[in-house]
């Protein structure tokens, strides 16, 4: 490998070797999910507390995952306000032992867009209680800084609404978030194709989280591999140091070339 290696991805002191995080919802079966997770090469898997019974050792979703290979990232999707999210988080930590939490406060059940006010409130409480908080947010640069200031471990801005597969519609805002961030930026939601994931990493995001694109693919395992390769390709491209983007062809004869020409020759 040539070029400058990327900075390691470290969240709360834990180094993650894959920049692809995977969600576990919407799959046709727990087995299909587990195979896709495996093929993705991920090290971080998010699970909706709404969907699993963390107190049940035989829960089908949890049982399908080899939790010696992946770090579990419980999420609070379905919570409508900070209080609900905090309650769920405490239960999850008590049952699973992990303090990592993907904070999702989505009062609108249709587009599942995150509530910035309640998310910030919940983050304050949870950070104070020792949780490693990874908040799902709209691509709002000021909110990202506020969450960073209260001690969140990452920020997870959306590319477009959850499940929409529409790609990085928030690209301009994402660029600002990435430029300003002190914590890792994980682009979450709306990533429908491997090219979207690559675009996010090329843009400078530290990681991406993908779920629907894998779950509803005809072949989730093949799609998981495609995402894995796309993320790796984008990492490699960043290391390779891409040339600048221009909207026109660059002149092969420089306009300022005359400065280097001898005076005598120009007459």
């Amino acid at each position, binding site marked *: 490998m040539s070029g400058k290696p990327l900075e390691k991805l470290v969240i709360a002191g834990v180094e993650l070797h894959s920049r692809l995080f995977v969600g576990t*919802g*919407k*799959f*046709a*079966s*727990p087995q299909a999910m587990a195979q896709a997770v495996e093929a993705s090469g991920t090290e971080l898997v998010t699970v909706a*507390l*709404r*969907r*699993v*019974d963390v107190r049940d050792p035989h829960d089908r979703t949890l049982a399908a995952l080899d939790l010696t290979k992946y770090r579990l990232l419980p999420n609070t999707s*379905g*919570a*409508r306000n900070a209080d*609900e999210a905090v*309650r*769920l988080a*405490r*239960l999850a930590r*008590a049952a699973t032992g992990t303090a990592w939490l993907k904070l999702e406060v989505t*009062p*609108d*059940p*249709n*587009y599942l867009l995150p509530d910035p006010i309640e998310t910030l409130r919940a983050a304050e409480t949870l950070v104070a209680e020792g949780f490693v908080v990874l908040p799902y947010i709209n691509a709002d640069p000021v909110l990202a800084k506020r969450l960073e200031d209260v001690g969140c471990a990452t920020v997870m801005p959306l590319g477009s609404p959850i*499940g*929409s*597969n529409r790609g990085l519609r928030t690209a301009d805002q994402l660029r600002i978030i990435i430029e300003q961030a002190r914590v890792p930026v994980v682009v979450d939601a709306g990533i429908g194709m491997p090219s979207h994931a690559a675009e996010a990493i090329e843009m400078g995001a530290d990681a991406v989280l993908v779920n*629907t694109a894998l*779950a*509803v693919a005809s072949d989730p395992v093949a799609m998981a591999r495609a995402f894995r390769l796309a993320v790796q390709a984008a990492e490699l491209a960043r290391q390779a140091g891409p040339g600048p983007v221009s909207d026109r062809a660059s002149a092969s004869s420089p306009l300022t070339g005359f400065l280097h020409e001898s005076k005598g020759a120009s007459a």
Partner: protein
Amino acid sequence: MTTFADTMEQLDLAEVDARIAAATEQDVARALARERRTIEDLAALLSPAAAPHLEQMARRAAALTEQRFGRVIQLYAPLYLSNECVNKCTYCGFSHELPITRRTLSVDEVLRDARILHDEGFRHLLLVSGEDRRHVGMAYLIDVVRALGTLFESIAIEIQPLREEEYRRLVEAGVDGIALYQELYDAERYNLYHVAGPKRHYRNRLLAIEAAARAGMRSLGIGTLLGLGHWRREAWCLGLHARHLMRHFWQSRLAVSFPRIRACAGDYTPDLPVTDPEFVQMLCAMRLFLPDAELVLSTREPAHLRDGLLGIGVTRMSAGSRTDPGGYTAADHAGEQFEIEDGRSPAEIARLIEARGFEPVWKDFDRAFVAPGPP
């Protein structure tokens, strides 16, 4: 705030019929091509002009459902608390004047049925009753919900309309959802079937779901009982109602149901039956118009149709249901509300769902959302 009851009072149903009847194939094509559909598009999709495009509608509906909900089907079970009822409704097996065995479960009996459903795997429970406050009043309901404790993750009710403060008390006790079907949006026809009792008041019934939403019910179930009214008109009004609730109660999830009427103790046969292709057209039209709504299919529908509709747009199903109080445990059965068409057990339904490439989901909610957990 304008209530939906106000909207319905101003609506000219003849004009709605005319709009649906006038829809052309071009209107249908336009409706199909759009990403977000208007109420005019719904009229086109419900029209006779859409019938030749049923396969195309089904494909679009299936793709939308998969993208939004994934390859999953949520399972729930109804638990009938009581078949006592003060209403006289010509189509219902619980109708006041019918000589059926009447019964209201004690809290212990409810728990007995509930444990069976829990053992079968259910974590989403729907408490159902006829409408009689003397038997199913607030104190009883709260006792039942408290006794159920943490056995179920989600508890919804399908009972008589209540007042907002009563709904609030139930929400506080741990009820998170309500189903309250208007049955018929056509007020004139509504009066033909709801002959006596409080259910005769069309407007009161229509207002109650909004009271429940204001009280904090997270899941709102609305529906029309097919067979009583003109289905295209009814479906269009159902769509309009759904959109009204989504705009005004943006934090509640909407569940839409359109059961077809079945035989019961009243020996009722539908006046305006809906054929299978019409039923599928309606379901597809609802999905295309409401990409985010849960579409519910009960065991009223026969097995072959339920199997076929699995991949098209349905997201929530009941299984192994009994519609008589105590039906899951009692040796002697009380009068049932309607006959079950799909009598397969929950385990059989779950296997079928898996065989069709979907995951049966028993838990899609958590009690911790509504009930205070550990400190």
